[in-house]
């Protein structure tokens, strides 16, 4: 074959492959259900192979981590030993304080997932690749009643949300992902706001916006340091799931509003088992039909076209 002809074929093939990839990208970004179903099917088909491979290769991972993360493990052991000593002491004190603890729970109103059906799941694997640091895969899926958006928790509180559900596995977007916004309630002030993880600061969460969010001058409305932060009843998740505790209240970059820094109750980087709260998912409201501003909708009540009475415009503006 002549070199020019060969070059032409290579070019055609490259263009074809690029076009196929762009088509797939477009379909996926537009939420084409068949493409997602096909991907889920492939993952489900390969799940037994991956499970087997995980079992076979887990000694390799263990060996690697024991070789290269030895110092980290030693430090972790020391910290755990210290923590265990503290827990032993606290256990004795807890007997005396249990009634106070109950009162505290009641006062904080944290009936945490008491009446909600939960599904326990094992974390099958951590993040895959180098650009998905804040997701884990759990070994429960559609067949176990999971659906997208459900809250994932541990005994300590919220861990994240179910992001993608296959037949027998699901991907969980962890609370450490700064793009995951959570509607929260500051228990000490009852303020409601939106929060997210702080990029580059593992274990920290920041609440800095919300309806009627207090300004820095509203000193009476500052939440107490150490007070609890839980999911709000109007958020996408079950109400009153613990998020963490307030560690700092500081002015935002604009020096006008507040930023509430929260230490997460969960260590989302070291999870083995989690529970999924099986709750009905709220659907986002359907977008209103777009009507050009100069036209009159066909189904508009003709009475509304009458000129408003005195004061009517003011009422509308309010």
């Amino acid at each position, binding site marked *: 074959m002549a070199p020019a002809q060969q070059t032409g074929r290579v070019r055609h093939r490259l263009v074809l*492959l690029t076009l196929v990839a762009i088509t797939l990208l477009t379909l*996926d970004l537009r939420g084409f259900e068949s493409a997602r179903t096909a991907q889920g099917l492939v993952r489900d088909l390969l799940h037994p192979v991956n499970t087997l491979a995980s079992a076979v290769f887990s000694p390799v991972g263990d060996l690697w981590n024991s070789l290269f993360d030895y110092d980290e493990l030693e430090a972790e052991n020391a910290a755990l030993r210290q923590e265990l000593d503290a827990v032993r002491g606290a256990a004795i004190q807890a007997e005396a304080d249990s009634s106070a603890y109950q009162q505290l729970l009641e006062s904080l109103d944290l009936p945490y997932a008491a009446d909600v059906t939960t599904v326990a799941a094992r974390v099958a694997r951590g993040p895959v690749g*180098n650009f998905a640091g804040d997701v884990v895969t759990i070994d429960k899926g559609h067949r176990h009643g999971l659906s997208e958006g459900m809250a994932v928790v541990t005994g300590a509180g919220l861990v994240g949300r179910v992001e993608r559900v296959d037949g027998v596995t699901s991907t969980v977007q962890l609370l450490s992902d700064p793009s995951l916004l959570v509607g929260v309630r500051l228990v000490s002030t009852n303020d409601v706001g939106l929060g997210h993880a702080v990029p580059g600061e593992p274990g920290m969460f920041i609440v800095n916006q919300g309806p009627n969010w207090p300004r820095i001058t509203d000193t009476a409305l500052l939440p107490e340091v150490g007070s609890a932060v839980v999911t709000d009843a109007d958020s996408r998740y079950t109400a009153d799931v613990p998020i963490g505790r307030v560690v700092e209240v500081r002015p935002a970059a604009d020096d006008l509003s507040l930023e509430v820094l929260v230490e997460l109750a969960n260590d989302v980087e070291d999870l083995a088992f989690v529970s999924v709260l099986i709750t009905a998912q709220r659907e986002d409201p359907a977008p209103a039909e777009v009507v050009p501003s100069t036209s009159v909708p066909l189904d508009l009540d003709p009475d509304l076209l009458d000129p408003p009475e005195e004061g009517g415009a003011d009422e509308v503006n309010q």
Partner: protein
Amino acid sequence: MIPLRLGALILLAVVVQVTVFADVRVSGVAPELLVLLAVMFGYWFGPRRGPTAAFAAGLFWDVYLPTPLGLSAIVFVVVSFAAAAGGAELFRDSKLQLATIAGFGTFAAVVGYALLGEVMGQRGLVDLEMLRVALIAGAINALAAPLTRPLLAWSIGPPTGLEGAGAVR
């Protein structure tokens, strides 16, 4: 027979990437085995068949990634073609040149994936951490490339993409 073996090789790479390299990381960076495969396909098969095989590998890898389907595939096609073009310019097919192509190819693939991901609406992919990941992944793949030669030769035969290269050392 070759497509079957090629499929098996890609499947093996995906399984190892998903299971082993979820835990085994160097300074927190997982080796990019599928990217290495895409570069090697370009080097091995040349610009005509290399990008096609790389596309298949990228598409399979996309199934496991949170980014949209086709993102890795498109990056792998480009990188594989570049590796094929680079390989064809070689006078000799040496391990050092292969390692260099694998290292640069991986760096370019990681950066390209992050940039294209940002363009497609994924947030937080482009930052200094991306450069660190690309450098480490590039270094790992540069070291691993000569080791994967025998595996490729065993599964899909001798290289056909080195029209410009001399005798294999």
